[in-house]
């Protein structure tokens, strides 16, 4: 199996090409969409790098929290049903810790710049 360059390196190379070489030559809507495309490759690169560890941690927390078995998707469905049917309290510290940890990992992949803003007083 050919694994050099890695998929992560390939994605980074395409992203750099888009940002540094293609974008300066483009105009208007096409330029805007090329920037969006480069950002999408940023998500891919971060998920390739950080996703596996984050998803494993999420699945481990879901197993402990729900007492269920199955894939990460199945466990998420189970947790959603428990929340919806009131089988778990919204202020259950195990639930709040799980949601907090999951969204922290997710936003680091999808939109790492988003969490920078200082919040208004509670």
């Amino acid at each position, binding site marked *: 199996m050919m694994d050099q360059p890695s998929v992560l390196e390939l994605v980074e190379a395409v992203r750099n090409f888009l940002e540094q070489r293609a974008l300066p030559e483009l105009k208007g809507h096409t330029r805007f969409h090329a920037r969006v495309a480069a950002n999408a490759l940023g998500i891919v690169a971060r998920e390739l790098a950080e996703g596996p560890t984050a998803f494993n941690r999420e699945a481990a927390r879901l197993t402990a929290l729900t007492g269920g078995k199955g894939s990460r998707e199945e466990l998420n469905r189970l947790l959603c049903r428990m929340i919806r049917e009131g089988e778990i309290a919204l202020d259950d510290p195990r639930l709040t810790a799980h949601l907090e940890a999951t969204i922290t990992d997710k936003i680091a992949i999808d*939109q790492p710049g988003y969490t920078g803003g*200082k919040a*208004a007083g509670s």
Partner: protein
Amino acid sequence: MKAEFFQPLSRALARAWPGFSQITDAVRLSGGASQETWALDAEVAGAAERLILRRAPGGHSSPTAVPLATEAIVIETVREAGGKVPRVRYVLKEEDGAGQGYVMDRLEGETIARKILREDEFAVIRPQLAAACGQELARIHRVETRALAAVLPTVDGPTQLARYRAIYDAYDHPDPVFEMAFRWLEPRLKPPAEIALVHGDFRHGNLLISPLGLEAVLDWELTHLGDPLEDLGWICTRSWRFGVTARPVGGFGQLADLLKAYATSGERAFTIEDVKPWIVYGSLKWGIMCMTMYQGFRSDGSVERATIGRRASETQWDLVRMILHGEL
């Protein structure tokens, strides 16, 4: 610039508008297949008039939007009540043969959030915008609703929450943060004490702002009768703060200033606690709209829609900050 509807449009305007002679320029601004917005320049009684045409070539534009003719009625009703909206000059009739739509004045100002929040020319007015929004919303919410009830649907908080629950359920991609938000909101998003005219999309993009202040409220396609708190909450939704999280009102102001101006200008005094469920609802609603973008991507392959799909996580982050940490 030439489009097949210009001739019938010009003829209709000439019949209805004394002194109208011709359309001198037209630029298509935006819109998809079902709805168009054009910037028109016209000559009327020897003077240049700057106009906007909103038009749906084949009739109705979208299932959630009100028909363009209804939009024109609401805008004129708001204007007669002293609201800041463009003057409607003409509503197309079927016999005009130019599609559905209306022509209104094109006003000067900026709608792009990043410019309003960052550029120097808006620095002086920025601290006053929250109060300006409060005053304007008070005017809109005071509009007499009896006549409008015949043309507008009534959609209150619980009805909207149930609608978005149905949309979200249909996507069959459940998320624990959204589930938490639905359960948190169900007892808190209550029916309104009093039904008011609601703009329905009162946020950056639809607020025309100049260095002198709020010039006009645009884009009335989602208007309905409902809870006045909806508009107050939507302008404070975190997704429209563009990084200025500490200024809940559109990234430019404080909620207390918005509510103070609102209470002074109108008859209702709301508290921050009254508005909070609607701010939370705003994040949930935009999060589900991001999921809808993903559905759109699955049919058209647009990279832009695809990445907006991933922005659902921003709303989940915001929901966690607001519900679990008590932030605004």
